[in-house]
């Protein structure tokens, strides 16, 4: 591969919806598996999922129906043997993925480092870090 070829995926996880966090982690883990670097910038509702015990707490983006829809989808996912979000997040970190936490969201939502899974976070940062990562990326997504 040429030195100047872009080989990174940078994803903004803005939504905290369960299905969208799945999409972010699946794409990121796919990129890592195929030899790319990957980072996920967690902001706004996405950042809620990095709170301690928060990863699985997101609603379904459509037809959540006060949790009934989510319960049905989770049951289907279990029957299809879909990996848990926790496993996907652990795989992401094991394969060298970077977790970036938006410090402005922390400020406006009153979230402290100790509220988050600090051991998983590579950096607390802002838009400049995202842009610097994204400009080197072949894939960048806003989810």
């Amino acid at each position, binding site marked *: 591969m040429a030195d100047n070829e872009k080989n990174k995926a940078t994803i903004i996880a803005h939504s905290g919806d369960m299905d969208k966090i799945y999409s972010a982690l699946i794409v990121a883990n796919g990129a*890592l598996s*195929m030899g790319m670097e990957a980072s996920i910038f967690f902001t706004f509702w996405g950042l809620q999922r990095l709170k301690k015990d928060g990863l699985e707490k997101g609603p379904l983006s459509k037809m959540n129906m006060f949790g009934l829809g989510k319960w049905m989808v989770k049951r289907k996912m279990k029957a299809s043997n879909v990996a848990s979000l926790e496993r996907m997040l652990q795989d992401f970190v*094991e*394969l060298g993925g970077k977790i970036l936490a938006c410090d402005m969201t922390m400020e406006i939502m009153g979230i402290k480092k100790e509220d988050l899974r600090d051991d998983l976070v590579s950096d607390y940062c802002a838009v400049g870090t995202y842009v610097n990562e994204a400009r080197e990326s072949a894939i960048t997504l806003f989810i």
Partner: protein
Amino acid sequence: MAEIKVDCIGETCPVPLVETRKALRKAEPGDIVEVIGTHPSSKKEIPMAVKALGLELLEVTDEGDTWRIRIRK
């Protein structure tokens, strides 16, 4: 040279791809990683990853619904 087996039978996207990558990262150069699974797309996509990683795809075989992919690091 070690031979590393990865069993992904019954696993779905993205687990076979991710488990293959995890095994390849841990393998030493020259080691063989053998992955078996049933997820149809992974049979096509693991070879894509092997190519992207610049490794050697030794063989892809089928036994019923189960595929077997052998890779040399």
